[in-house]
């Protein structure tokens, strides 16, 4: 059994099926790309996995346990953490405050211990903050630690989102278009970091339009169109698949 398994997952909004009987198996340690034209159900897929939407039909298994129907916080605590397509921030928070909240899932001490500031909590706090600073340095956010997150450039806000997701100690990281609106260098910087994340044993699922990024990064691609999975396989193969080309470019009319 795969690490993350979607069985026959359907999500309907009224009569519109955003996802129709999708089966996907994600193996541990792989980088899975999800592609498809606009409105093909990519973001819905991430929303269904992360618990933001409940699937209308079908089940999702993670590590052999059913997770479909659970609340987002339970799924995040279980190890599936996502980022958002747009820049979603804590309103009014600085970079430090944002990553601090992101790191709460790492604590083993409970709220009581934190409230009474016990030694166990303080030790753990120092440990977590150490990891947090390291991560800020990795994403070149360290110099902006005390600045409002809303003041960061678009690219760095996206990186902050990824850093926050990583701090929640994910086993599976869901990235919803991590490089949108970035220039080439920024995008490549993100790609390098995703590679590093993957090398640390985190399974990555990402939605991406940038073909360079895809070919560079992913081990496998799933193509969605109108909520259906139309192709699956190595990126080079899938890109030459006739159905995929038609989905993206349309059919030739003679």
């Amino acid at each position, binding site marked *: 059994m795969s690490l993350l398994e979607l069985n026959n997952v359907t999500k309907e909004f009224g009569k519109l099926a955003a996802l129709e009987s999708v089966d996907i198996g994600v193996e541990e340690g792989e980088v899975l790309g999800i592609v498809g034209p606009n409105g093909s159900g990519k973001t819905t897929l991430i929303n269904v996995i*992360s618990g*933001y939407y409940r699937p209308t039909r079908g089940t999702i298994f993670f590590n052999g346990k059913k997770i479909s129907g659970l*609340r*987002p*916080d*339970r799924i*995040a*605590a279980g190890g599936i*953490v*996502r980022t*958002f397509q747009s820049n*979603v*921030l*804590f*309103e*009014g*928070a*600085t970079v*430090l*405050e944002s990553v*601090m*909240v*992101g790191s*709460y*899932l790492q*604590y083993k001490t409970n*709220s009581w211990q*934190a*409230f009474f*500031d016990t030694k166990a909590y303080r030790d753990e706090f120092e440990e977590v903050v150490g990891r947090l600073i390291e991560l800020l340095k990795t994403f070149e956010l360290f*110099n*902006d630690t*005390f*600045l*409002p997150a809303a*003041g960061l450039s678009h690219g760095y806000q996206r990186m902050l989102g990824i850093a*926050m*997701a990583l701090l*929640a100690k994910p086993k599976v990281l869901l990235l919803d278009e991590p490089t949108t609106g970035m220039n080439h260098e920024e995008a490549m910087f993100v790609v390098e970091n995703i590679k590093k994340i993957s090398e640390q044993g985190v399974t990555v699922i990402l939605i991406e339009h940038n073909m360079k990024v895809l070919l560079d990064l992913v081990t496998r691609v799933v193509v969605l169109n109108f909520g259906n999975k139309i192709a699956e396989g190595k990126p080079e193969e899938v890109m030459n698949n006739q159905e995929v080309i038609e989905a993206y470019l349309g059919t030739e009319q003679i």
Partner: protein
Amino acid sequence: MRYIDYKTLLPRSVAGLLVAPFLIFPLFSTNLATLSMFILSGIWAIAVMGFTLILRTGQFSLGQAAFMTIGGYTSAILTVQLGWPFWPSFLLAGVVSGIIALIIGSVVLRVGGVYFSIITLALGEVVRIIAMQWEPVTRGSRGLGTAPPDPISLGGFEINFAASAVPYYYFMILLVAITGLVFWQIGRSRLGGTFFSIAANPILAEHQGIHLMKYRVIAFTVAGVFTGFAGSYYAHFLSTMTPYMVGLWESIQIMIMSIVGGISSLVGGPLAGALVLYALGIYLSRLPVYGIQQLLFGAVVVLVLLFLPKGTGLVDLWDKFWRKVFREPDFYEIPSEEPSQE
């Protein structure tokens, strides 16, 4: 609203030191009117802290006065009807109020938002109607005449509440200090950060693994406990508990005090808001114009919302003043030039 306010620690500590002489105020004056003004504003400050804590989780409670009624009636019924001594009744008032908050919160906070506000608004009325109708226990609209807290002897030194208002004053200080300490510690511990994140962006917070409902219930319950204590103390200070003492207007007053004081501080803001507005209210009630207090409170809220938006209030005004005097950089400002990228 901030979560880690390193920049405000010093100015706010200094503000705390500036009001420290109030700790020994009764040495200078034992004027009953002045003392009771301070005692009552301290009681309101506790309720306002509770309201602010709930607001920190993004919920707007319009029924905080209900928990004062619950606390007040709990200890009044225990002492008058069952003949309990004051101190255990006082403790139980907080517990009962907290349990009711826990039960109501667990149900109502499932929906949250506007529904929460409306249901808490209704809660205040429900509690008042129960107090009116449950004649055999609450004596209806006549209310219960409460006795002052029992005297305490501390190493041969007797503290007698019946004799003067001074013991009430010191116990109020103690109660506010304990409540303030708890709330301050909540604010700077992980709970405070969690509350902050829930108000700042509930969807993101939930996807970062925070159980929204759990933490909203925690905030509501903690507020309920301390508001219950405040209500009990209120009833015994005024030596009566009637259904008319705290109602909708008081709930709104708590909200106004919180907004005016500023919600960026869980302790200083409520204290400042309660003290300033309660004093203003006392002064206004002496004027021979009916309803002028409500009218001017409304005007104050409009002014605060206009000139101190985004939850800032008196405490933030003080921070700003501090930064201006000591020429510290404004923490909230985004530097105009990009941080060195070359």
